[in-house]
């Protein structure tokens, strides 16, 4: 049994070999008692998952409770119990699924219409795979407030009134009852036998609902208490602003409010910006202190980046392009300053050093003044590191590629020229997306630039003999098109790392593969 138990643990931890899994399930089928033994082990595993995932959330919510002002009616005991509300609510599951879920009974008063949420065991909830994934995926995001418990035929239900709809108002409209009320409910925990003492009237929760072919389900419930609500608002609302800007009456204007740095150029105070609807810092230049030190870097906030990544609306491209031009301006100066053709690699400064933009474009004070005057070609690049700049530019190019913004192609090519070969790879990979709707002239320009890169790379590598021969490639089954170095399908030989290869060889190889692949894509676009 000991050996089998080890295999069971390995299997439950997703680490058993195929042979072990086979042996385990043969053993399970041998005797009903074996199956029960396996079931008990698996139950322990599931309960551990529930216990630890729940415990983690208790800690998380507990931190926010520290320093929470107590009310006169709040006893020490009730505060302790309260720590369990957030994790409990966080795993609420909407049992009213789908259109099939309208648990509304004809003939009852409108106030009796509830969309009931059931509390499920702690620890059973999905986690997002990307930032803001739940917010992007949800069809409805609403804030509810917990109300009075009310008695049903078999249960007490906590009424949860709708306070605000942040996303999916059009769906919520169809949830309204005859008198226009939308009400949710949670089975009162004491009645569920699971989560007793976890309810307090007047608290707010954010509910995320998802619509699918089968109906509706909950993605998530966030308990908004104490410091949680301001934090949640500060994180989620700007994201939703950007995500939903495409649905505004005037999307261009909305994007201008949210993204255009020009709105911030005249030193507007926070209240003025707020009056313009631009109180959130979603996209902005770097800011600096009087002594020229960076307070914050330029670029898109996470809210703006992910909002546009999930909803790459081409109407936002204009504002991203404006930001891109700043990088391009800097990049082209670097390329020219190095006395090299625009498309050939430019020597890099060591990582983490300043961009040098201050030197080339004036003092911080002068640059700030230029920026305040609205000079579109200047930007206060004050002590911003090269890495930070490259990262923010990469984000811009990623979004513009998703929007297939052909107008950005040339600026991107110019900026790319200022990068080292390894840094250039990620930008080259975006070119097919950027060029999808480009005209023939632009495509030919890109192909010409790529040809220069290829030629330069070949000449460079031919001057640096490698101590080891390049790995032998698998025969490329595709018809030859005159380019004998066209990368073939990913084969074992191409991925091999022979002993004795120098550091940087793989990087160069990746760069070259990317170049050829990108050029191939551009040629396909030209033909197509």
């Amino acid at each position: 049994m000991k050996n089998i138990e080890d295999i069971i643990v390995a299997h439950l931890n997703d680490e058993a070999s195929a042979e072990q899994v086979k042996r385990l399930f043969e053993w399970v089928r041998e005797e009903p008692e074996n199956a029960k033994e396996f079931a008990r082990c698996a139950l322990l595993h599931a309960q551990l998952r529930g216990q630890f995932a729940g415990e983690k959330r208790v800690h998380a919510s507990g931190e926010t409770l520290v320093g929470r002002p107590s009310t006169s009616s709040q006893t020490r005991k009730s505060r302790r119990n309260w720590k369990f509300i957030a994790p409990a609510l966080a795993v609420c599951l909407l049992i009213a699924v789908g259109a099939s879920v309208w648990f509304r009974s004809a003939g009852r008063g409108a106030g009796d219409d509830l969309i009931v949420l059931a509390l499920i065991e702690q620890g059973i909830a999905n986690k997002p795979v990307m930032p803001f994934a739940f917010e992007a995926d949800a069809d409805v995001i609403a804030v509810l407030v917990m109300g009075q418990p009310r008695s049903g035929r078999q249960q007490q239900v906590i009424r949860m009134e709708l306070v605000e709809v942040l996303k999916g108002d059009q769906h919520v409209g169809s949830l309204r009852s005859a008198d226009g009320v939308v009400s949710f409910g949670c089975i009162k925990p004491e009645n569920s036998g699971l989560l007793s003492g976890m309810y307090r009237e007047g608290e707010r929760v954010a509910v995320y609902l998802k619509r699918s072919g089968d109906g509706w389900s909950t993605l998530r419930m966030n308990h908004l208490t104490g410091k949680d609500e301001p934090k949640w608002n500060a994180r989620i609302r700007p994201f939703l602003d950007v995500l939903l800007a495409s649905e505004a009456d005037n999307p261009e204007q909305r994007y201008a409010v949210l993204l255009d740095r020009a709105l911030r150029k005249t030193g507007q105070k926070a209240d003025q910006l707020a009056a313009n609807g631009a109180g959130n810092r979603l996209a902005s230049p770097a800011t600096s202190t009087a002594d020229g030190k960076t307070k914050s870097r330029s670029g898109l906030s996470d809210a703006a980046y992910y909002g546009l990544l999930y909803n790459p609306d081409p109407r936002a491209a204009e504002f991203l392009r404006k930001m891109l031009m700043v990088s391009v301006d800097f990049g082209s100066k670097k390329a020219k300053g190095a006395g090299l053709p625009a498309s050939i690699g430019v020597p890099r400064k060591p990582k983490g050093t300043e961009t040098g933009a201050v030197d080339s474009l004036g003092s911080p004070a002068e640059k700030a003044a230029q920026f305040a005057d609205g000079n579109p070609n200047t930007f206060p690049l004050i002590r911003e590191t090269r890495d930070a700049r490259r990262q923010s530019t990469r984000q811009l190019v990623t979004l513009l590629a998703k929007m297939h913004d052909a107008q950005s192609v040339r600026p991107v090519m110019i900026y790319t020229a200022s990068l080292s070969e390894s840094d250039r790879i990620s930008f080259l990979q975006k070119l097919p997306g950027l060029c999808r709707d480009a005209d023939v002239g632009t495509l030919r320009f890109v192909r010409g630039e790529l040809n220069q890169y290829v030629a330069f790379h070949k000449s460079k590598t031919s001057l640096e003999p490698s101590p080891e021969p390049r790995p032998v490639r698998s025969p490329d089954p595709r018809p030859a098109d005159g380019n004998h170095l066209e990368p073939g399908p990913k084969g074992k030989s191409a991925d091999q790392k022979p002993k004795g290869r120098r550091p940087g060889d793989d990087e160069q190889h990746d760069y070259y593969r990317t170049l050829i692949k990108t050029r191939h894509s551009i040629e396909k676009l030209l033909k197509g």
Partner: protein
Amino acid sequence: MQEFKVDQAQVSRFATLWTQAQTSVFAVISATVTNFADAEDVLQKVSSVAVSKFDQFDADGDSKAFVGWTVAIARFEILRYLRDRGTDRHTYIAESLGEIAQAFEEIAPEYFERREALAECMKQIKGRSRDVLAKRYGEGLKTGAIANVLGLTTGNVSVILNRTYRTLRECVEGRLAAERGMS
């Protein structure tokens, strides 16, 4: 939007039944779908299907019948998941699914007392063992990742996991045996 008229009592009834059954359903799923994230996805799918088909569930059915009914739904969803993966190991699991579901149904009455016993037994687990469990079950990390985070070898982590698991198992069984002896 199509609108189904369901009696409010049905809502309460489903909520009660599901609250009681979901532990069993998740246990069955996590026994066969060993990746936590995938298991949670399957559970969510089962709950959706159960709600949409709730009108087909026997009106007089009790919680035990509901567990059986939802586990049957879970079996279909697990099979669908395993079929989509299509590897040998998933085939072995799929072939045993009937026995496993049957076994879970039989041990269902023990769920709550086992959970309470586990909560008590967890108080004995401290230090490195607890850290490893927290990483594995709280954060869903695998052995290699836990080893990296805690500065251990993969072998160490496996040993700690196995040893702690066995300790908990023995503790839970011991407590249950003692309680049965007393009653």
